[in-house]
């Protein structure tokens, strides 16, 4: 009789436990989080994986989860994903954050768990602006080419995404690109490898009207304090309308390769990075970047020395419009995530240039950086 009672108690406990885990997943799904998985559940401990596409910044999502009591009140590890690839894990005890780390769980565990509310084949329509500008010189004090952009983004499989955008001219006294055109069309595959190694492979029409392929690879050390990696790309000029005017130099194939190393000063989330190699216009040399992060906001300095010349300037990444993009759906319009501003002392030079490969995990990796996220979680 005693044995039967013990077995009954164990069964009831297990049922109650799994009910709590399922309830948490259901609440998260109702809130708009996707790619949900209850990877592990035992008494007093749960491992839940999810993807945030509702909020522009992931720290906002974590704050929402913590403040709205969407999580069960026990020991919990939340793993945040990007295109269903686990990236950062958050340790939470009784709704209080205790630790953040780049995720170290075996990737196979996520593949073996049931996925609910998947984000695949849901279309996002990012709306925003794109521009080129020049300050001066003399009587032409400010030249601007301003375009509205409307895009399409979709996740096709784990790490595999397709993104495209059209540009619509609004104002232009800067150049002759005064017609509706394709801004970019890129297929990207992000791959998570063991030991904090990431790869992004992209192909298509990149920014700066370059068509070809691009491969990036990065290894993180000591939770992102150090990082090293490389980029390889082969592109040639391609402008589908055939109407763009370009410099003669643009019309040659380009083989790009850089070797990169970065160090993060955790106290201030200051990242110093050096890239050396051959850049877009076949100039060889190096760039030095110093970036300060305040959550999703970023301000940095850039210096470049190549055999094309020397240049310097600064760049700003500023969030665009509102932070809540609403629940993802089959077709969701939303604002673009941020407005970039790049300023170079010598404006239209060809020193140490690169093309835009769209949203890749490597490009966004610092948004998932534990040190940077931690300072924005209440």
């Amino acid at each position: 009789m005693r044995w039967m009672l013990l077995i009954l108690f164990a069964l009831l406990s297990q049922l109650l436990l799994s009910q709590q885990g399922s309830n948490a997943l259901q609440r998260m799904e109702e809130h708009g989080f996707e790619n949900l998985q209850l990877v592990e559940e035992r008494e007093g401990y749960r491992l839940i994986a999810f993807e945030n596409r509702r909020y522009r910044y992931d720290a906002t999502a974590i704050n929402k989860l913590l403040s709205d009591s969407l999580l069960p009140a026990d020991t919990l590890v939340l793993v945040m994903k990007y295109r269903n690839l686990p990236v950062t894990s958050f340790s939470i005890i009784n709704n209080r954050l205790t630790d953040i780390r780049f995720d170290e769980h075996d990737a196979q565990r996520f593949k073996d768990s049931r996925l609910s509310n998947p984000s695949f084949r849901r279309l996002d329509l990012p709306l925003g602006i794109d521009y080129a500008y020049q300050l001066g010189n003399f009587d032409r004090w400010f030249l601007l080419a301003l375009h509205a952009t409307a895009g399409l983004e979709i996740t096709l499989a784990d790490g595999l995404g397709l993104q495209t955008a059209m540009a619509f001219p609004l104002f232009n006294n800067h150049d002759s690109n005064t017609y509706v055109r394709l801004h970019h069309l890129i297929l990207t595959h992000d791959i998570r490898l063991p030991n904090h190694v990431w790869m992004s492979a992209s192909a298509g029409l990149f920014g700066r009207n370059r068509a070809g392929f691009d491969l990036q690879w990065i290894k993180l050390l000591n939770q992102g304090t150090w990082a090293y990696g490389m980029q390889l790309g082969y592109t040639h000029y391609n402008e589908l309308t055939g109407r763009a005017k370009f410099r003669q130099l643009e019309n040659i194939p380009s083989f790009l390769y850089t070797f990169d190393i970065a160090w993060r000063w955790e106290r201030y989330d200051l990242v110093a990075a050096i890239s050396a190699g051959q850049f877009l216009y076949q100039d060889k040399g190096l760039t030095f970047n110093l970036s300060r992060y305040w959550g999703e906001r970023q301000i940095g300095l850039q210096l470049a020395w190549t055999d094309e010349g020397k240049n310097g300037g600064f760049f700003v990444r500023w969030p665009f419009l509102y932070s809540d993009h609403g629940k993802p759906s089959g077709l969701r319009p939303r604002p673009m995530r941020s407005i970039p501003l790049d300023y170079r002392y010598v404006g239209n030079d060809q020193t140490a240039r690169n093309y835009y490969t769209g949203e890749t995990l490597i490009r966004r990796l610092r948004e998932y950086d534990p040190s940077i996220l931690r300072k924005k979680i209440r």
Partner: protein
Amino acid sequence: MKPLLTLILLILFLAAHPQNIGGTTGMFNTPTAHMQPDGTLMLGAHYLHKSIGSYPYGGYGPYDAMAYFATVSFLPFVEGQFRYTFMHAMRQHPQVDYFGDRMMSLRLQLINGNNKAWPSVVLGFEDFVSMAAFIIDASSPSYFASNYVVSSKKIRMGNVFADLSAGYGFNLSHALMGRSPARIQHDGLFGGMELSHRRFPGSGLMLEYDSRRFHAAMRLLLFKHLQLLAGFNADGDFSGGVTYKIQM
């Protein structure tokens, strides 16, 4: 009417660590050794009387100017600025009818004296790209270049703060190459005092000497973000403007 006037006068007697007419942290036309809180971004537009923003361009000037700037506290001890300055009412010229001048500035706090017995000390490089270019090539123009070291200390007297600053602007180009640009913004000794009230941080009254002229000025901080700055030199010439502050 009287209470309103009293309130306005009261509000004008205030101050914290705002920025000067050039857009970096300081009094009116002199820098101080204080720094903004880490991650402060300041966007502003200031009108510079020609006694402050002298442009002897093309042999016709000097001209008044409008300065548009973005200043950021990149680190708690590093402040950087980008500024675009335009000549005002400049004589027309066949090739030039509107002149925009870019400049970058950098301030490094060497000693932080906040809540300590000793004063703060800052080393500043205004328009350092132009200064560097002038050092390399004497034909390169430089209108607002300034290299200085400044020390500041805030003293509390009841509810009133007196913020005292003194500094020295040195001619780096002359020291290195034996030649000077057309104009150095702070050339020699400068200093000043700002009075503020504890209950109204960010606003205040200032009296200063900028190494050439005396200025009397006042500032007002509205809604914690919007700063209005206005000042006059001894001849009664006005300079002033508006700045919006954002905390990142």
